[in-house]
């Protein structure tokens, strides 16, 4: 029931959008979301787009792990003792 999946918006027709998940296409309702553009990624849940996925935030989340990389380089000598 919590099943929501990132899907790419391919085309928009009024309150509906054709979205794609790895090549499978679905006509989703935009009744619950405004300002959707072609090329956006949305979260698809039981037939509705419920939110846009922010590319910047996704990159930020993954970038945090670069910080961890440095942290690990510092700790490494201690762990190897």
């Amino acid at each position, binding site marked *: *029931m*919590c*099943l*929501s*999946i*990132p899907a*790419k918006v391919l085309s928009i027709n009024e309150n509906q959008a054709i979205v794609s*998940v*790895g090549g499978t296409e679905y006509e989703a*309702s935009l*009744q*619950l*979301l*405004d300002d959707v553009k072609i090329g956006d*990624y949305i*979260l698809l*849940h*039981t*037939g*509705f787009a*419920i*939110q846009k*996925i*922010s*590319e910047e*935030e*996704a990159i*930020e*989340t*993954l970038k*945090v*792990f670069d910080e*961890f*990389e440095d*942290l*690990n380089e510092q*700790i490494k000598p201690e762990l190897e003792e």
Partner: protein
Amino acid sequence: MKYIDEFRNKDIVNLLLKNINNISKKDVVLMEVCGGHTWAIQKFGIPSLLPENISLVSGPGCPVCVTSKKFIDHAVALSRVKDVIITTYGDLIRVPGSTSTLNEEKSKGADVRIVYSILDALKIAKENSTKKVVFLGVGFETTAPPSAAGIINAKVQNLKNFSLLSSHKIMPPAMGALIDEGVAINGYIAPGHVSVITGTEIYEPIPRNYGVGCVISGFEPVDILQSVYMLVKQFETQDFKVEIQYKRAVNPEGNIKAQQVMNEVFSLRDDWWRGLGTLPLSGLGVAENYSEFDAEIMIPVEVEETKEEKGCICGEILKGLKKPNQCKLFGTVCNSSNPVGACMVSHEGACNAYYRFNR
């Protein structure tokens, strides 16, 4: 696939595990309250990767699991009414009621159809104008707005043969109730997609009143492990707060439009949760001005008296007090082919996940 594969990256996962191991000193219990998290944690084998002092416990996050037997009995009673078509999400059809399941009713000739979306149910209603279509509304704040949107569409399209039987619930009362009951939790892996809709303010009372942190988590392994890291950090530093890990989809105010649609069609009411009993203002009922779409009103039926199964401890499992393998019925009388309790039926149920992935 974008926004999925990057968050399953093995190198990042290993980095996160290293860092969790570095900072985690004390025994810590983290609870997830979203069926999607229960499923993902077991599917990726995350418990096998975490150090022993970190315990992941499943809470009442599976909407099918917390749904009362009475709701199933009501649905079963409706399915037996002439010219009624029951439309439902897949998981619900095998959930045991007092004496039957929707699947059993289907095998006896009842018209029970599994749908992907309430929009499919509306289509069935339009194509079968002489029949009464009932949609079973189950789920938390992620699924309630789609149900609400469906009802609004039914009103706009002037459908006379469509109604919803609601078992929708909201999450925060359950999270507070668990701690009130004395369940020992050091941190909540907070529901990701509920929060997409609601925003984050609904969780503020948890750290404020209970000293328990909340990290709103995505559903990929990288998300879950980063959330574990953040919660462990909060616990080790005793700095409890609401944080968003799932930043690419969750913002503090949530999806206002979806909230408005949900509040337009539903109103809060007291509701019964398996394992927690009745929680005030924790359920969503169809609002008065949409009562022509409320199946409770539109199709009166007699519902049989609820009978609970002896030995089934779904209630305690839903509170994280016991693990599935501590239930006397687990794996023997109650298994994924022959489920006794709701926790075993639903793919998001703790017992089902445990049975399929862990025993």
